[in-house]
Each structure stands twice: as C-alpha cells, then as structure tokens.
C-alpha cells in the first residue's frame, strides 16, 4: 500500500509542479482566469514552487524505488504529469481557477 501511495505522491507532485510552471506563463495564467499578464512576483513564486515540486517528485521516486528504478520512474512519470496538465488546460481549465484566484489575493 505505501508503494501505491508513494507512486500517487510522485504523480501528484509532478502534476502540481507542472501546473504551477504552466500558470507562471502569461497565456495559461490568463486562460485559468488570472489577468492578462501574470504578475512578476506571482510568476516567480509559481516557478520556484514548480521546480521544487519536480524535485520533490524525484526524491519521492528515489525513496520508493532506489536509484535506478527511481530515476527512471521520475523521468517517465513527469512526462505523464505534464501531459495531464496539458489535458487539464485544454478541457478542464476551470479546475485551476481557484488556485489562480488564491494567488491573486495573496499577491
């Protein structure tokens, strides 16, 4: 069971990480209901969070599967996560709207 949970965690970290990176771009920030341009500070925060989450996904994958399987799992799962972000932005962009709103309030 912890195996499955860890796998899910790797995926979620990769997915949220890429979602943050996507939202830091003006086009997607606008698309998920932010303003025309993603404010500089928000963009920076999103980028840092995105990279940190991708790194967290790597750590989780290494913890789960060790060096060789872990790195392989990470390299492939992040692609799956990124493709899921693309699908979300294309068909379910409103899922990310609350996050954008929250960031606007904070920023």
């Amino acid at each position, binding site marked *: 069971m912890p195996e499955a949970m860890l796998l899910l965690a790797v995926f979620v970290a990769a997915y949220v990480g890429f979602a943050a990176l996507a939202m830091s771009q003006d*086009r997607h920030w606008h698309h998920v209901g932010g303003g025309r341009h993603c404010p500089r500070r928000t963009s920076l925060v999103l980028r840092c969070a995105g990279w940190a989450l991708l790194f967290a996904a790597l750590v989780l994958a290494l913890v789960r599967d060790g060096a060789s399987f872990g790195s392989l799992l990470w390299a492939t799962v992040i692609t799956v996560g990124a*493709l899921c972000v693309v699908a979300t*932005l294309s068909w379910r962009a409103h899922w990310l709207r609350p996050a954008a709103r929250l960031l606007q309030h904070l920023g």
Partner: protein
Amino acid sequence: MEQGFRASMNWLHTWSGVVLGGLLFAIFWMGTLAVFDREIDRWMAPMIRLPAAEKTFSLEMLRPLYEVAAAAKSPTFSVGLPTDRDAAIRVLWREQSGPVHRFVDPGTGAVLPDPGTLGGTRFIFPFHYMLHIRIQNIGYWLVGLAGMAMMALCVSGVIIHRKIFTDFFTFRPDRKPRRLTLDLHNVTGVLGLPFHFLITLSGLVIFWATYFPSSWQVTYNGDRQAFFTDAYGNVIPKRTGEPGGMASFDAMAAEARRLWDGSALRYVFVRNPGDAKSVMQIGRLDEGIVSSTYDAAYFDGPTGALISYRAGTAPVMSAQRFLSGFHFIQFRHWSLRWIYFGLGLAGCVLIATGYLFWLESRRKKHAQLGLRGVRIVEGLTIGSVTGMLIATVGFFVVNRLLPLGASALGQDRAALEVWTFYLVWLASFGHAWARPQRAWMEQCWTLAAMASAAVLLNWITTGDHLLRGLSYRHLWPVAGMDILLLVGAAIAAVAALRLSRLSRIAQVRNA
C-alpha cells in the same frame, strides 16, 4: 545563417518524417504492444492461461522433451522458465523440419497442445525490431535506419520548434485542424522527448554489434563467435558426434541457485544436446534491477560439473546492458510497464500527427495547383496508422476464429494468422487510395467493430469473459487486453462519429 540552418533542418524533419513515418509508426506501435507481449500470448494461446505454479517443480519433467531434441540432433535445447508474467514453461528445439516450440504446464508436467500462433512474443515483438524480413538482415537494417531517422527527427524537431517554452503546455483543441495537429505534435514531441529519445537510442545500442560491426570485426579479425565469447563469456563446445548423457537437471539448477544466493532462474539452455560435449547454461532471473544482466552458469552436460559462472559485467558492457534493460523491460515493475505503454502510444500520436500536419498544411495548395502529393501521402498515412491498427486487431480476431490444427494452402495455423495480418494491412492501403474522402471514417468504424468482435470471440471460444477474467489473478492479462480492446473500440467509434459529422457539415456547405 540562422534562417538557412533552420530551413534546412525543417526540410530534413519534413521529408525524413514523410518518407520514414510509416515505418516508424509500425515500429513504435509494435514496440508499444510488445510491452505486453507475454500478456498477449496468454490471450492468443488459451492453453497457457494457467494459474501460477504453487510449489517449485522438478526440471526433470523436461527430460522426455530433451531426449526428443537429442534424437533430432538439435543444435540447442532451450527452456524459458515461468516468471511473474508467464505461468507456462517455454521449450524450443530444432528439428529437420524447423524449430519446434512447446509449452509445458509446470504444475503437472504435461506438454500443452500446440497453440498454433506466434502470438505476442514471436510475431509482435520480432516485428518491432526486424519486421520479419530475414534476408540479409534487411529487417534489422531498416529498423536501424528508422531509429537513426527518429534521433535526427528528435533533434531537428527541437531546432525548428519556434516557441518551445511558450508552447510547452499548449494544446488548443478548438482551433482549425492544421493548428490542432501541430499543437498535438509539439506537445507529445516536446513532453515525450526524454522517453522517445532514450528508447530510440537504447534500441539502437542493443544491436550495436549489427549496426557498428567494424569495431569487433577489426579487433577479432571478423570472428564473430570469438568476439561474443569474450563480450558475453559464452562457453561454446564443438560437437563430437559421440553420444553422451545429461546429468541431473535439478542438481545443476540447485548449484546455480546456490552460486547466486538463492536467486531464481530465468532459463536453461543446452548446446549440443545428446552429445558427449554438451554444455548446460543456466541463466539468472534479475527482475529486481533495470539492467538486463546476463549472469549465467555453465555445466558440463554428461558429468554435471561446473565449468564457469558469471555474476556482474565488465564496465563497458554494463552500460550497454543497462540501456538494453531499460529498453527490454524484463524487470518486475508494473507501474513502469504501464507508463512505457502510455508513452509508446504518445509516440504513435506524435508520428501520426506529424503526418496530419503535413497533409493539412498542403491540402489547399495542392488542390489549387492540381498536385497529387497530398492524396498519395494521405493514403500512406491512413494505411500506416489506422491500417496498421486494423491489421493488428485482425490478427487477434483470426486467432480466435481458426480452430486448432487448421491449415490451408499448405500453410499452418500460425502462418495463416500472419498472412491475415499482412493481407489486411495491404488492403487498408488499397482502400485508402481508392476512397480518400471516406477512408479515415470507414477504417475507424472497421477498427471499432473488429476490436469489439475480438473481445466477443474471446468470450465465445474460451468462456473467459471480462467479469471472469477480472475475478481470477491468472486471467488478469486476458481481462486487461479485453479492456484495452474495448477502450480502443470506443475511441475509434467516437472518432468515426465525429468524422462523419464533419463530412456531413462539409457536404451541406458545398451544396
């Protein structure tokens, strides 16, 4: 300069894609299926839908088959032992008439009836790396050429992509077909790049001795066997012609296990069965590491004495073995297996959308100028994409329709299945060129109907319907394949419905 370089890369990307895309799609598609080759075997050969053997079995049960191989003077006798994915023992030897493949039930020792199919491991998997063209190794070289082209396509694709980071997550399904296909091509290409590049590179590295023969030919004076003996450490005895016995299989297997601290065994392989100089090679099962090691122990056949054994590899080979292992996925990791399957499909989408973009960006111009290029390439695309899928499903359908032992026109059952595959594939090209307006839609309908029929036929001929398949652990591979066939059928049906709606809209507009 920059513009000129980009333009030439664009030219390279476009034309190597158009010329080799069909071949690449076939290789990617078959490779994606080969991820589940043993599961496909279980679907196509119902006699090996066995529960996993509960107790350890005696290898001595294989001695009668070994005696048959020895009597036939087969050069080798090879036994694939059960794994997590494979419940039956696979035995192979060679007779005057050709190779003989048999499955053995490890629980009872019974030799199972000939399934009469090449299945996933002997049709789909070899198609992936040599296209079943054996003459002069042409199949290997074509796949190698396609592999090199894929690497060039990956690199040139990155160079000609104008906004790689801005468009990193961009897919706009509501845009015009031209933009939509380019988006999809870019997204699957850029996001899948690490996997697609590595899987292609590792695929080429597996066959390095074929593709880059000069290195070992120079060093070993062209003596391939001597080179392989050094690289892989094989013990290859010369046949004496004197008859010789074979010591206890189980004793040698126990000794091999002891050498590797109780590790499980992957295969048993005898050179010169029945000869006074026979050698028994026993391979170690390494499901727990990425690297595809080739640890093996060698025993003198008649006495059963250990000749040599190997654990671990030399540095250069270990890199090659890691890349091979990454490609072969013989390790036990179900999450990665499914991810490989998904990313393999993404590769198929990448290649197909590349074609579609080429077509969409030229369709109007070619129609105005009266050029035939679009029509030719569109037929090529349809045959390579939906035609390949239909041929594959046709292979599954005919497998469930032919009775065991069937033969026609001097071809046995397994050959008939393969003929069906190629004829259906060929027919799909003919159909695509004959009816360019409706071919996509009609082939999608065909695909949907045939994939559903395959699931239905599996139920009728074996009784293993989806619910039954899901409720027994040893039938999960069968249920999994049924589910994927149904999902594929649904996607094909949705695509066909949308295409027919679009063509109706176009008709109304033109009227």
